[in-house]
């Protein structure tokens, strides 16, 4: 991942600040940076969202395609994740440099959604065992300034909220064969229940405390972080330790508590924001990428 070099003196400065709950940019330990969300930014997808968090920027596009359900779960659709670490974000990703990080991120996303509650996959089923919707979730990293996981998960939630899947009707012809008909009306579409889609909170252990939404400088002072994905109810769908250090069990328990608290508080304002933007409808002023 993109890293910065931090001198010893800077490290001490950052560490002491965090000890006193005052970070370099004036935030407290559990505060996020300024966040901007815009949905429906890419017209040729079924749902999209762009999220910027400090200088980190990610774009998520969702495409719905008709596929065959997995043999083990014939009455459910499924999600496919792909994370593209473009060389735009940092020169380190040039060539195949971003591949490793991309698979790491997408593998974690599969785990985050590997449960019954996150998204009602049965709603994606068209006809059991034969056809279902497959949602291809493509994540594009535009800029890296720390805390990729959180930004990606929020962008995915926003994009899923924005996703419009055309309605389909199954009609059977005389010989009993089934045919799928797509609705002609572009406004006749299905929306997803995104209430319980989890958000990821990354907690970075710096000194004896942990901080939320670490910048690259803060990340350089930390040896290990914990990724926790939290639903609006406060349940945890995925945790993972990342980084080269180890953690005390007690501090892991504290971090899980903090992650739950922060993650739970994230959902309500996010949903409100999304609904507000949606209600503006056509009047909404589009900002786009350069805004």
């Amino acid at each position, binding site marked *: 991942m993109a890293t910065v070099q931090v001198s010893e003196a800077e490290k001490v400065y950052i560490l002491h600040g965090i000890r006193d709950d005052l970070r370099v940019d004036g935030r407290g330990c559990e505060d996020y940076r300024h966040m901007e969300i815009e949905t429906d930014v890419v017209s040729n997808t079924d749902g999209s969202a762009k999220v910027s968090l400090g200088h980190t920027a990610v774009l998520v596009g969702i495409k719905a395609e008709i596929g065959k359900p997995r*043999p*083990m*779960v014939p009455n459910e659709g499924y999600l496919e994740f792909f994370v593209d670490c473009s060389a735009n974000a940092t020169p380190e990703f040039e060539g195949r440099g971003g591949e490793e990080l991309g*698979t*790491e991120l*997408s*593998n974690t996303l599969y*785990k*985050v959604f*590997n*449960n*019954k*509650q*996150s998204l009602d996959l049965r709603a994606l089923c068209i006809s059991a065992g034969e056809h279902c919707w497959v949602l291809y979730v493509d994540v594009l990293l535009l800029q890296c300034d720390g805390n990729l996981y959180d930004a990606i998960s929020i962008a995915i939630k926003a994009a899923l909220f924005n996703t419009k899947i055309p309605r389909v009707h199954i009609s059977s012809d005389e010989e009993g064969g089934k045919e799928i008909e797509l609705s002609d009306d572009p406004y006749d579409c299905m929306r997803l229940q995104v209430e319980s889609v989890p958000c990821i909170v990354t907690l970075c252990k710096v000194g004896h405390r942990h901080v939320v939404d670490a910048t690259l400088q803060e990340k350089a002072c930390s040896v*290990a972080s*914990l990724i926790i994905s939290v*639903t609006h109810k*406060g*349940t*945890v*769908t*995925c*945790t*993972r*330790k*990342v*980084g*080269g*250090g*180890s*953690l*005390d*069990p007690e501090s*892991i*328990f504290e971090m*899980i*508590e903090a992650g*739950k608290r922060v993650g739970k508080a994230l959902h309500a304002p996010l949903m409100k924001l999304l609904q507000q933007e949606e209600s503006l409808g056509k009047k909404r002023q589009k900002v786009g990428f350069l805004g």
Partner: protein
Amino acid sequence: MPTDTKRVRGPEVSQSPSLVTSKPAAALPSSGPRADGRQRDQVDVRPVFVRCGLVSQAKGSAYIEAGNTKLMSCVYGPRETERKDETDMKCGRLTTDMRFAPFSCPERGSWIQGSQDRDFSLMLYESLQPAVCLHKYPRSQIEVSVMVLENGGSVLAHAVTCASLALADAGIEMYDLVLGCSVRQDGASYVVDPTYAEESGGSCGGSSEDAGGVTVAFLPSLNQISGLQSDGEMAGETLTAGVRTCIEGCYKLYPVIQQALLKAVRKAAPPPSES
């Protein structure tokens, strides 16, 4: 799909006979004793069989068997690092490679390493790295590879234990051994060191809120967690309890692993005879 010219190819598609019957996997009961006679809700790990130094070509190696789970790990190095562009040459580099033999799972796997294998390799790396004194091996790399011969559940946890044992057998300086343990939560009850059936059957069994798996990598004498991984959906308290249970499981494993290591060391350097 690009054709693989480096292997003997078979038909383009084939199906496992167990899929033809397409019987949905029967959900395992979430109460009563487990299929292998172990107890629920107790730190009842499978007895493990461990051996060090089985592979003649490797610097260090270990084999572990717990129930049907069989895997081996080899360590090569330290040798000169391949990557010269690395900015930080003061520290050694650890590489991990975890693979599943094609016949190790109920469904035949491919020879080509999938993203799941890479994910396992990464988690193995993150669990082992904190325990290895990499600063003692500047400009060199230490290679750890793990081969899963049979997947009988809790593969990652046992891979961590096996790999750390192989590292110790290779004489690589470490702060502590790393032990792994898994717990599977299934509603109100949990099973420690789940088998393959328990791992895959539980998740599709119920719609209960607490269903998921936790794997912990633990440094027992330093009381540090070097790896933590969970999926499924669990309440925070359940997760915390799961982590505690895993730590307890690791402590149960500790004397067995120590014994195996001691035996390997004795064999390599027999104590001076009294004559």
